[in-house]
């Protein structure tokens, strides 16, 4: 099949429209550049009533919000999931990895948890502290100015706490805690576990005239129609379209590889148009990959040429290696004190917790090296499919025979509504060379593009950390007089550790570093092997602390994009 070439040469092509791609599009367009944003999924605007799920009731759909068609429930705003028809991936024998993708403008930012944590000074230099993994080639002081700018541009609520490794920012004020969160605060303090207002990119206060202020529907996962949460489309791509530069948006366009010339420099990208199933080439001076850590690694590995025989940017052999996701382990309990609670008020709040516990431990005294934070859920939420399941186990917490039927059961459900609490631990997994993705030698997707094969195992570090999470949860339940719904999972159940990839914080596949033999990009996220190719997703992360990765993706993408503008001006690329 003949590849259809475009005559136009863009200043930059950005592959992917999530957090990293959106930020790069905004910065490059603000600088007046002529750019193309290439997105594998369809156009999406959270305020389009056709696709909007915000404000829908469960009974607006026959499946009542069930997750049978979208992994986090049918109102969740991610087109895609762990498994996408026509886009498989594989794992090596005996290992597991789950790869969540969202094919739409804005990518996974349309549904994410908006937990917006800065990495702290120690998080960039963890090897210097405990000898594990590697230090970043940059430090907190390099990223701080960009975190500051991201806070102001996008908006994040939080509070100044002056914690040494959880830096403060330019915060909007947080919402008041919900009832179960007050119960949590009391219990955590008894155990000496700190609790502070959560830090989420949701506008509790106006930051500009283009975006609305939170109307407290708890539905950020459905992407906000008044743009009061951070989604890349509504907060970065749309503003980029209105700025100085020109933005051509290519949707339903799946990038296969980066094209290079005889000198090894990138000349553009090849993509498949999903609408006509034909292959096209776009040309540009600079290629910016933001297709997600694993997506960008896959594009690089699929960009083999005489100059780049192991794939673009892969002379070190490091592309795909050091893949790591956050660890996760959780449990739930019933709080007897909150049985029969009054329900005559609206407790939706923002989309997510109003309080959380940053890591408090001293790892020198523990049998695992890195920390975790605790996320809290509960309250008088909107019922959806799954509500009321498992009453044959739950009713025993009401002091009578479990199971049943009739108006006793009806009362049980109402008595227990709002009385449960859940904890999720989110911890740092140490990056290892032998956790990786690579091209599957045999399998292709529906576009004929070789797919990824994953190889990922946990070490004792993660297992001991999850064990500690479960012990902490049990202590917290005891401190609030709560009854765990399930026994804390033990060694045989990996202490409840989520499968790799399930926390959807996969990072590290194109790590940055000063040594071209041991890293894929330099500290400006520029390929060592091709100066006009940059990676602005979470691929260049050397480690990711126990802090959710999005805020750091945004700060680093801004930093790398500033560098691109500077280097173009100086005609260095």
């Amino acid at each position: 099949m003949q590849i259809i070439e475009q005559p136009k040469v863009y200043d930059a092509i950005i592959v992917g429209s999530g957090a990293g791609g959106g930020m790069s599009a905004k910065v490059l367009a603000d600088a007046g550049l002529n750019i193309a944003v290439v997105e594998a999924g369809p156009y999406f605007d959270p305020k389009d009533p056709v696709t909007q799920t915000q404000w829908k009731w469960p009974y607006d759909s026959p499946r009542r919000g069930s997750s049978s068609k979208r992994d986090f429930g049918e109102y969740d705003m991610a087109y895609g999931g762990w498994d996408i028809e026509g886009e498989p991936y594989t794992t090596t024998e005996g290992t597991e990895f789950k790869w969540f993708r969202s094919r739409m403008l804005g990518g996974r930012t349309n549904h994410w948890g908006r937990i917006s944590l800065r990495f702290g000074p120690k998080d960039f230099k963890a090897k210097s502290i405990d000898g594990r993994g590697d230090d970043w080639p940059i430090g907190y002081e390099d990223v701080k100015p960009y975190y500051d700018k991201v806070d102001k541009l996008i908006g994040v609520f939080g509070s100044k706490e002056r914690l040494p490794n959880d830096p403060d920012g330019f915060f909007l004020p947080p919402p008041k805690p919900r009832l179960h969160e007050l119960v949590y605060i009391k219990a955590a303090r008894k155990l000496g576990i700190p609790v502070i207002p959560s830090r989420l990119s949701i506008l509790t206060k106006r930051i500009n005239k283009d975006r609305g202020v939170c109307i407290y529907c708890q539905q950020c996962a459905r992407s906000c129609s008044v743009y009061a949460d951070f989604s890349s489309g509504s907060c970065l791509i749309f503003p980029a379209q209105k700025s100085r530069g020109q933005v051509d948006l290519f949707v339903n366009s799946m990038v296969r590889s980066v094209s290079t010339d005889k000198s090894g420099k990138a000349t553009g990208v090849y993509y498949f148009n999903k609408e006509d199933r034909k292959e096209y080439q776009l040309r540009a001076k600079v290629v910016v990959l933001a297709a997600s850590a694993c997506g960008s690694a896959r594009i690089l590995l699929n960009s083999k040429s005489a100059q780049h025989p192991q794939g673009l940017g892969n002379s070190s052999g490091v592309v795909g290696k050091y893949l790591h996701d956050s660890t996760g382990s959780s449990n739930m309990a019933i709080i007897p004190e909150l049985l029969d609670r009054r329900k005559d008020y609206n407790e939706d709040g923002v989309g997510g917790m109003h309080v959380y516990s940053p890591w408090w431990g001293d790892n020198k005294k523990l049998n695992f090296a890195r920390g975790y934070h605790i996320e809290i859920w509960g309250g008088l939420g909107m019922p959806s499919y799954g509500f009321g399941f498992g009453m044959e186990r739950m009713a025993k917490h009401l002091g009578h025979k479990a199971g049943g039927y009739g108006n006793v059961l009806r009362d049980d459900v109402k008595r227990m509504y709002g009385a449960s609490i859940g904890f999720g631990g989110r911890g740092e997994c140490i990056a290892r060379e032998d956790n990786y993705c690579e091209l599957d030698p045999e399998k292709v997707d529906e576009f004929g593009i070789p797919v990824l094969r994953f190889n990922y195992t946990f070490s004792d570090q993660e297992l001991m950390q999850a064990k500690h999470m479960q012990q902490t949860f049990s202590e917290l339940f005891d401190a609030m007089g709560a009854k765990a719904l399930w026994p804390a999972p033990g060694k045989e159940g990996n202490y409840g550790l989520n499968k790799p990839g399930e926390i959807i914080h996969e990072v590290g596949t194109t790590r940055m570093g000063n040594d071209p033999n041991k890293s894929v990009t330099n500290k400006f996220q520029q390929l060592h092997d091709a100066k006009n190719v940059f990676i602005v997703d979470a691929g260049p992360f050397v480690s990711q602390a126990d802090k959710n990765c999005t805020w750091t993706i945004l700060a680093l993408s801004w930093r790398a994009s500033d560098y691109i503008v500077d280097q173009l001006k100086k005609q260095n690329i």
Partner: protein
Amino acid sequence: MKRRDTIKTLLIGGLGTGAMLTGCKQDGSDIDTNSVVPNIDANNLYGRTPEEAKVDAALHAQPSDFTKEELGVIAILCDIILPKSETAGSATDAGVPAFIDFMVKDIPDNKLPLKGGLMWLNTESNKRFSKIFSELTEAQRIEIIDDIAYPDDATAAMKPGVVFFNRMRDLTLSGYYTSKMGIEDLGYQGNRPNTWDGVPEDVLKQHGLVYEPEWIAKCVDNDKRNEIAVWDDDGNLLT
């Protein structure tokens, strides 16, 4: 959006295909995202993509997995699980049998356990009373239900019935409490725009909890939520 912006803001599915959608109307007014999917009444939508809408239309068109008699027994069981109360209607009043019928199409793993369970129930009814379940008196039905509704007390012979009834209970409760009637019965007050200002004072009091002044001092002042945020250089909010 200005005309100048509309020219530079193209929404392209792929150049050279003739299927180039522009993101803007010709008159230069704002982005018309509806042009992607034409002529759909937004009021009846629940946010499906075109592909998802097709799947759901096909599911609706698919015949029921149950016979009329089976659906009758499902309705009886639904109303045993959630009968009418003093303040709210029954499971069948809330349309739960139709919900279960749909969920069996949507999640086919439900099919065998439910159909098999219904047959088990008829077999058990026949053993005890020489009649199928729907022909039993209410007292006879409850005699069987009592043997399968309490897992901890059930005999080994009743286990298949317990598993079936657990699933019926799950689906009935979920169907009911996600219906308009059920949500009202539950007392859920949300899913409407509002300004969260904390748990009401008397509810806090009832649970012996308080908002500490130090914590509240950090929280949002809703009177100022529409004032654009401005900070000093140290990140202290000035507005």
